[in-house]
């Protein structure tokens, strides 16, 4: 397109320089491009029929086909090229590259996104050495089921029980009522054969609160749900239609004692409960990790929407500014610039904030390993409000990008509706917007009271010290 070519010719900065900044350095850009080129060279002929024209069953089957293809490419080519560290430092690259295969979502998303990280974060070294090789080699496929039909962000309210039976050295997992059914987890419906289940732990007649358990839900050979397990898909939804979101209930289903993830607390053979970690909030680690990742995720999706809308606005011509003259590019209208440029800026703001949050998260984790949990409340408050605001801003701005593209933005082939329905879901899951902000508010009010009483406060709320003096 001539207009786009002209736009590129008039650009007065080195585009690659900004790419390198956003990637985190020139080496990381090279690494990303290398991974992308491997994956993309294999993925071009993935869909002959557009995914969105298929029925729900066919879409799921097609998503599984592509997930297996993509997994094989990652296993055989990407991991052999870069080694296992790709899963850590380059996980966002894999996430980005996966979009070449899935316009919507892979049913495998939570396998590497939450199943594996939870085992890493909450399993003992023995548990990790048993489960991780099987999971990373995709011999088993797992997901993470925390949310229940009747319970979301307030995880202390979860109803699923895991009652220890010392006679058989097993936990009995049970869903006491409909509201305790696990609900929404991606990959749970028809895909996963294992699942991290978060349940209230009972032993020796006492409840010790929520704990994570690895639960086999389907036969490894036939894939049939195991007796005592009721599992299925939750039905059509606004977006995420290939994510295989599922429900899961248990009828006094037994699992071995060592399937409880025991890094932070253990149940001994005789049923004695032993707390290993010094801080009760360590189990929040997975949740905080996911929220940190989500800020990055929405920055990425907003950048995509901005790219689509800005390029389209350079191609599209509309109306007459001056009678008789050619139609201007719509990007020349200041109202269009007002809609679009803040989207680019916000994508940068969220990307850089996400990198910063990741560094903060890593530092707090390192502190915690050394026994210092002082900064955990601040990290929890930060990850909560950044997750809330970034998902909310991104959803609103992606919708703004769609509106900036007029009727064509309404086409699924523009990809804008899918980006919106995907990001708007992130505003709700892993902590709804309002609930998360109220959690942050609790931290802020405590910090304010601390500042009022002249005690030191943590860095991100240090501004309160000055404000409190002003108030007095």
């Amino acid at each position: 397109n001539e207009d786009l070519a002209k736009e590129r010719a008039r650009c007065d900065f080195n585009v690659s320089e900004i790419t390198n900044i956003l990637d985190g350095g020139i080496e990381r850009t090279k690494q990303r491009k290398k991974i992308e080129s491997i994956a993309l060279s294999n993925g071009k002929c993935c869909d002959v029929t557009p995914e969105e024209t298929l029925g729900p069953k066919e879409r799921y089957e097609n998503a599984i086909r592509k997930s297996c293809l993509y997994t094989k490419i990652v296993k055989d080519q990407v991991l052999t090229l870069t080694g296992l560290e790709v899963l850590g430092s380059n996980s966002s690259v894999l996430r980005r590259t996966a979009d070449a295969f899935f316009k919507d979502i892979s049913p495998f998303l939570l396998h590497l996104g939450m199943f594996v990280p939870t085992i890493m974060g909450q399993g003992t070294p023995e548990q990790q050495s048993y489960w991780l090789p099987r999971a990373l080699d995709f011999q088993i496929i797992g997901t993470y089921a925390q949310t229940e039909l009747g319970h979301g962000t307030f995880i202390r309210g979860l109803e699923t029980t895991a009652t220890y039976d010392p006679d058989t050295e097993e936990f009995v997992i049970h869903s006491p009522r409909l509201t305790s059914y696990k609900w929404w987890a991606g990959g749970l419906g028809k895909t996963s054969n294992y699942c991290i289940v978060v349940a209230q732990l009972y032993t020796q007649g006492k409840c010790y609160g929520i704990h994570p358990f690895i639960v086999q839900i389907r036969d490894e050979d036939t894939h049939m749900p195991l007796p005592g397990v009721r599992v299925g898909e939750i039905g059509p939804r606004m977006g995420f239609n290939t994510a295989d979101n599922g429900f899961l209930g248990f009828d006094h289903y037994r699992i071995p004692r060592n399937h409880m993830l025991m890094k932070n607390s253990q149940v001994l053979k005789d049923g004695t409960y032993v707390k290993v970690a010094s801080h009760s909030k360590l189990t929040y680690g997975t949740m905080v990790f996911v929220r940190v990742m989500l800020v990055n995720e929405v920055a990425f999706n907003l950048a995509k929407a901005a790219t689509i809308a800005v390029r389209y606005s350079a191609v599209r011509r509309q109306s007459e500014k001056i009678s008789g003259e050619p139609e201007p590019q719509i990007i020349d209208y200041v109202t269009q610039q007002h809609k679009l440029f803040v989207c680019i800026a916000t994508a940068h703001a969220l990307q850089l904030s996400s990198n910063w949050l990741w560094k903060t998260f890593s530092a707090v984790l390192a502190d915690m390993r050394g026994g210092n949990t002082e900064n955990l409340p601040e990290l929890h408050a930060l990850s909560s409000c950044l997750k809330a605001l970034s998902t909310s801003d991104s959803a609103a701005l992606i919708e703004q990008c769609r509106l900036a593209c007029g009727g064509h933005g309404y086409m699924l082939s523009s990809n804008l509706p899918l980006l919106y329905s995907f990001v708007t879901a992130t505003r709700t899951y892993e902590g709804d917007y309002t609930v998360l902000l109220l959690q942050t508010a609790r931290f802020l009010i405590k910090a304010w009271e601390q500042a009022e009483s002249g005690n030191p406060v943590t860095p991100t709320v240090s501004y309160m010290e000055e404000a409190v003096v002003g108030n007095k």
Partner: protein
Amino acid sequence: YKWNGSAEGIIKAAYYVAAGKISSSVTSIRKRMKNGKAFEDAWELTGVQLVAAAEAHCRAVICDVYRKETVRLTANSSPNVKTVMDQLNMLYLSHWALERTGDLLRYTSTTEDDLISCQQRYEELLAAIRPNAVGLVDAFDFPDEILQSTLGAYDGRVYERLMEEALKSPLNAEPVNRSFHQYLKPLMQGKL
């Protein structure tokens, strides 16, 4: 706090807004408790203010981090990259200042004249960024396979791609859909 319109000034104002909202929330909770409410009830009744306070705090943190990281990451960049990154950053800060004029007027000593100059600066920034807009989104470096969009492909063949995708619709696989024979024709012939 006296508004000065600089990036650092806007960030400081954002923190003042956050502090003001937190302070108001604390005052409300205490007032309700003084009037006999339990803490939990006072908290619940102050919920709307608390959410707004947390929002303001988070916005201030994002503005602050975005500014500091931009300055840090472009310290060794070429002058034009530094300029365009700074323009984007200022655009973000000005945008949110203008979105929250009520808060600025309530919690800082920002005046109408300050906001008028902020609006003017915002519009100047739109014009300054305009020539580099396509370059800026190109810098996100999305291959077409990842973008998966008829409107956003690198080559800009928007209309051709829209038509190509339309032709892939299963409804276009046959010239006449069977519903014509089952329903439309009988309706039009009065034989339904």
